[in-house]
């Protein structure tokens, strides 16, 4: 535990962290929501960001901080997901700003494998490039391409699209 005790924060620490969170926070949250859904994804995001604050010195030297924190978050939420077979991106009865959630789409996404769902949502919902997805997930671009292709095919089948 002693090794994890952070040095007292300085004003430059706080400024650096604010910049860091502004630059990377949105993308990290998107990645975790795509992977785990809103409920667990937001929890994972919170835990990852606090870990980032407590380990800010280490994080300053990391090349891909979003990918690094994505893996930190994965380890943090693993106990929550041990018994969980399917991930719902949203509560299907949830109403968002007067518009009901696309229940069929959410249910169809829940049937995809986690890598497929993560890749499809990041690419088609959040507009990430294949390379960006590959960097954060720690896989090759070819693998991301495969996940998006297969995931989209399955969604089209489930939703009756050609």
């Amino acid at each position, binding site marked *: 535990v002693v090794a994890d005790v952070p040095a007292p924060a300085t004003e430059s620490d706080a400024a650096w962290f604010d910049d860091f969170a502004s630059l990377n*926070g949105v993308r990290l*949250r998107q990645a975790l929501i795509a992977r785990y859904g809103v409920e*667990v*994804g937001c*929890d994972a995001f919170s835990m990852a960001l606090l870990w980032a604050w407590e380990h800010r010195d280490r994080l300053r030297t990391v090349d891909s901080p979003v990918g690094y924190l994505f893996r930190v978050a994965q380890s943090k939420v693993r106990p*929550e997901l041990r018994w969980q077979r399917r991930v719902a991106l949203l509560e299907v009865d949830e109403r968002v700003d007067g*518009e009901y959630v696309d229940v069929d789409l959410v249910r169809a996404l829940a049937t995809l494998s986690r890598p497929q769902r993560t890749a499809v*949502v990041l690419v088609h919902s959040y507009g990430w490039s294949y390379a960006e997805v590959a960097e954060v997930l720690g896989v090759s671009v070819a693998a991301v391409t495969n996940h998006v292709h297969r995931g989209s095919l399955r969604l089209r089948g489930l939703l009756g699209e050609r």
Partner: protein
Amino acid sequence: MTNSLEDRLGRLRVQLDDAADRRQGTTGGAGDDVVVDLAPRRRQQRSALARVLAASLVVAVVVLVLALVLRPSSTPPASSPPQWRRLDRTAIGFAPQTYVGPFTTTPNGTLVALGQQIHGKGQLTAKAWFSRNGSHWQEASVPADSQTPGVVARLRGRTFAASSASTPGISLWSTRNGERWTKIPTTGLEDASQIMLGANTNRVIAVGSRNGTGAAWTSPDGTHWAPANFQDAPPSVLSNPVWIDQQFVALGLTNDNTWSTWSSSDGTLWRLATAATPERLGSLYAPTNSTRVYGIQYETAGGTLADGGSFGGRLFASRDGSAWTEIASFHQRLPVANPDHILRAHGWWILSGNTGTPDGRRRADIWMSRDLRTWSELPRRLQGNTGRGVAVPSGSNSTSVVAAAGADDRSLWLWRP
């Protein structure tokens, strides 16, 4: 309108962002606000556990029935303690490098935090923030001031905050809604120092010292102040005024570190209630409509566990200020707890402060009790960062209870009853 898979997935982004913003209690769009929430809601874990538990339901029921039948003295099961979340203050509206001092609540239910921001090499700026829900805070408009408004009192819809400098020179602010504070004149308080505020339904009082002697003042409106009189020789300074059971009670301290308790029916004439007052008593607190006042005996500065009894805070209570009794369960159950604030909210007693050994490795912590006999503590994962001891002020409104640590530990704890 097209409705291809790509279009539907594109629209899903908005729905996900909106749901995430609501989930994290923010009002900004598309994830611009970052909220660090350290207490994951366990809905999905509970769901998974429920499946496991369902398999052994029959066994569990049998065990439960046997336990209830065989238990010799039946005490009601304790309610589950408050479920706190730990948030990063800078992600919910507080500026970096801020200390949060007292919390209070305006008559319209707005939570208010007073504090200061540290700039550069220690320059201070007084700050205030307000929130409806405890998880999204906005900076209030405050007068330009370097003194920390450290004490508060409420009178007829107005909330007053005063600085408590050790030298004469009082700064007094006032607000109605917590969003805008104004500095008000302090006629009659010119020579006051070490001020703390209290109030009942028709007047606000200030206690402190004047020229090295304990003094008190009363005001019907917070602006015009009149000095109070003392029936007995006053101490060096008065502090911690609270209104309880039709009288004001305050603590007195002499230059030779002798504590005493003082009382006054209306704030204009003070008398010695008792000289038998626990030393190092402070943080007096009287819940609304309570007939008791509560206080914390702080640990001896620099004390160690080997000193025997000087370490760890102790909780005391008094019916009228004339006799103090220790609520021994707190220190017995939590011998290294060092609380500095007391709050009664939503059926719970909530003490906050720091825990740990007095070697500088302490963590902000919160302790809770329904009955002042049995206590629970924040789980280790939710306690503050290890560091030097910090004060952890607390506050509540109808929907939220909050507590905050110092500048090095940017945590704010939130419980939604």
